[in-house]
């Protein structure tokens, strides 16, 4: 099993009365809450944490894209990934990802991802989300009625830009370019960097991932219990399509807090978890459902009850039903796994096997968790949990993992001084 360290980069100093005084953490969150001088420290802490995760042996570090968002300070994850490319050596860089329809022209994504792949020596995982309604339709003004068509077209363009050897003209419905010929080109060119698709629980997305041979990632904040129905749906669809149950076809996001004991874990992680599920997910429901964002097929499936509320990330209004904001409910609901190392080992193995997920993306920093606590959580997981779960799925080949240049062929990064060595 691959263990991947994911950072959302939440603003850690939203006020205690945030939910009372402010309608939304997203889209129209007030600028007065943002102190750039504090954000200077947050960004540097967060990047330290990502580098630390790479140092202690996580298989990948993951970043993602959000806009006008108080719990996601990465409008451009590529900036962070390029820095990580210089500050890590062997760790995969998972950019989860770039919302293709937001880039004009979308070849910008092909270029920037190729840059990261070149700088890192071929360690990029290219994530292509459609993007949430808040990010795409509201913060970025994209038309919800054409968003998906734009997304699919941009995908075709980016993929062709990576793989086509000759300069070509692209005459699409939304994009017209006479000369497509990106420089640089990705190192991973057989045929292109691994493509992973974060998505909700729509059958169309599952089918598309199967057809294109991409990794499907279910990035819910609500943990493995709520994710079970979606992942079962995914695997049922794979078997209908004649695909094997290779767990590396899938990725899943899970919050974890590990400590010496369960009580100590509760002591350490209650505040950051309640901060996240309380303040960070305080999204005004008026931004949940721009008309056309959810396809009619998915609406129909939802109305007909083929999908459970919890499983439907494509329909964020259903998130309102999942409102646990106190630690007991958060833990009981499986949103955050907590416990001693052995208790977490047991839970992680259960998550892996019950969801059949080979790429586990872990949130070990959440809410207002400090750098010290984050590093503690990260180190304990790496030392005491990781060795006891890594063997899972050893019988399967991960065909969707980056294939970097051989170590000896890669550039030495002279500025690189491992954090651990200094400590």
């Amino acid at each position: 099993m691959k263990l991947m360290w994911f950072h959302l980069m939440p603003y850690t100093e939203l006020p205690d009365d945030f939910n009372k005084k402010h309608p939304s953490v997203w889209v129209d969150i007030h600028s007065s809450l943002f102190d750039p001088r504090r954000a200077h420290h947050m960004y540097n802490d967060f990047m330290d944490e990502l580098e630390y995760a790479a140092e202690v042996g996580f298989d990948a570090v993951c970043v993602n894209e959000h806009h006008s968002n108080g719990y996601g300070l990465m409008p451009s994850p590529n900036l962070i990934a390029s820095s990580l490319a210089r500050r890590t050596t062997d760790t995969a860089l998972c950019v989860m990802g770039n919302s293709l329809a937001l880039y004009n022209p979308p070849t910008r994504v092909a270029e920037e991802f190729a840059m990261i792949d070149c700088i890192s020596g071929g360690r990029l995982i290219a994530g292509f989300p459609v993007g949430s309604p808040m990010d795409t339709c509201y913060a970025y003004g994209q038309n919800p009625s054409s968003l998906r068509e734009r997304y699919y077209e941009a995908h075709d363009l980016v993929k062709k830009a990576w793989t086509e050897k000759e300069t070509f003209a692209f005459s699409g419905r939304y994009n017209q370019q006479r000369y497509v010929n990106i420089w640089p080109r990705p190192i991973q060119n057989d045929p292109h960097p691994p493509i992973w698709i974060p998505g909700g629980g729509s059958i169309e997305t599952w089918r598309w991932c199967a057809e294109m041979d991409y990794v499907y990632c279910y990035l819910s904040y609500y943990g493995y219990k709520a994710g079970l129905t979606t992942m079962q749906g995914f695997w049922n669809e794979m078997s209908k399509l004649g695909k094997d149950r290779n767990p590396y076809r899938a990725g899943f996001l899970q919050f974890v807090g590990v400590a010496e004991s369960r009580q100590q874990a509760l002591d350490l992680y209650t505040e950051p978890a309640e901060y996240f599920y309380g303040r960070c997910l305080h999204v005004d429901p008026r931004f949940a459902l721009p008309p056309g964002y959810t396809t009619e097929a998915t609406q129909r499936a939802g109305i007909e009850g083929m999908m459970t509320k919890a499983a439907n990330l494509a329909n964020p209004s259903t998130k309102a039903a999942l409102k646990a904001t106190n630690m007991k409910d958060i833990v009981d609901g499986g949103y955050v796994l907590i416990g001693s190392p052995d208790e977490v080992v047991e839970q992680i193995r259960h998550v892996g096997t019950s969801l059949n997920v080979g790429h586990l993306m872990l949130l070990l920093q959440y809410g207002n968790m400090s750098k010290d606590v984050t590093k503690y959580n990260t180190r304990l997981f790496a030392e005491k949990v990781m060795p006891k779960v890594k063997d899972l799925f050893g019988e399967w080949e991960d065909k969707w993992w980056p294939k970097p240049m051989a170590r000896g062929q890669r550039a030495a990064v002279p500025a690189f001084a491992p954090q651990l060595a200094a400590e």
Partner: protein
Amino acid sequence: MSELKTTTVEINGFPCRVWTKGSGPKLGFLAGLGGLPRWLPFLDRLAETRTVIAPSLPGYPGATGHTELDTHLDWVLAVRQLIDKSGLAGADLLGASVGGAFAAEMAAIFPAHVRKLCLIAPFGLFDDKEPAADPWAQRRDNVPALMCADGAKWTELVAPPEGANSVEWPIEMTRASEAAARAFWPLGNTRLEKRLGLIAAPTLILWGERDAVLPPSYAKKFATGINGSTRVQTVADAGHLAYLDQPDAVARAVLAHFA
């Protein structure tokens, strides 16, 4: 007054419903946000003395094909075909809200197609000093009061009639909202301002005095921009869809203008 007649015309290969009722000179109606999920008392008033023809724009109740329309030109040409195929070329044209923006386009771009024009709180302009409300970013329970002075009027409009398919009805209502978004996202601004000067038809502009979507002050911008003789009339106790709030008053004003 004749019975309500339903026919279908094809636009870009997709069906669009056309409702016809009444007798007398033809009067075209392009409905506002939400479209026409049901026939309206307002249209009955008009049908007492006129042949009311109400084609559904692509994506609105009774019609599909909005997903084929990518640009404003695509929309304008679809509406033009709809006007032609409904037999409305050269008739009086009434448009409200989103339908009002297209009625104005018809009068501007195809002046021979519109005898007299009446616009009820039309979309198409945006003033950043007086921004229009965002109809696509509303909590569900706020929508009725946004659309009508009496929110119950909106709720009646979109309520599933007896025997309606419980799966397809809500999808159809969402589709109407999507069709509006497809043409007017994000601000409702189609740069109609540039074409108002081409409108030569005598024009009546009606605006609900309590319009919560488009500020009533927008009426003046239309009146100033339109080239033909133009009159603005405010509708008391009416919101954005004034024809739902005050069917009699609005019908009287429309019929007087088209007389």
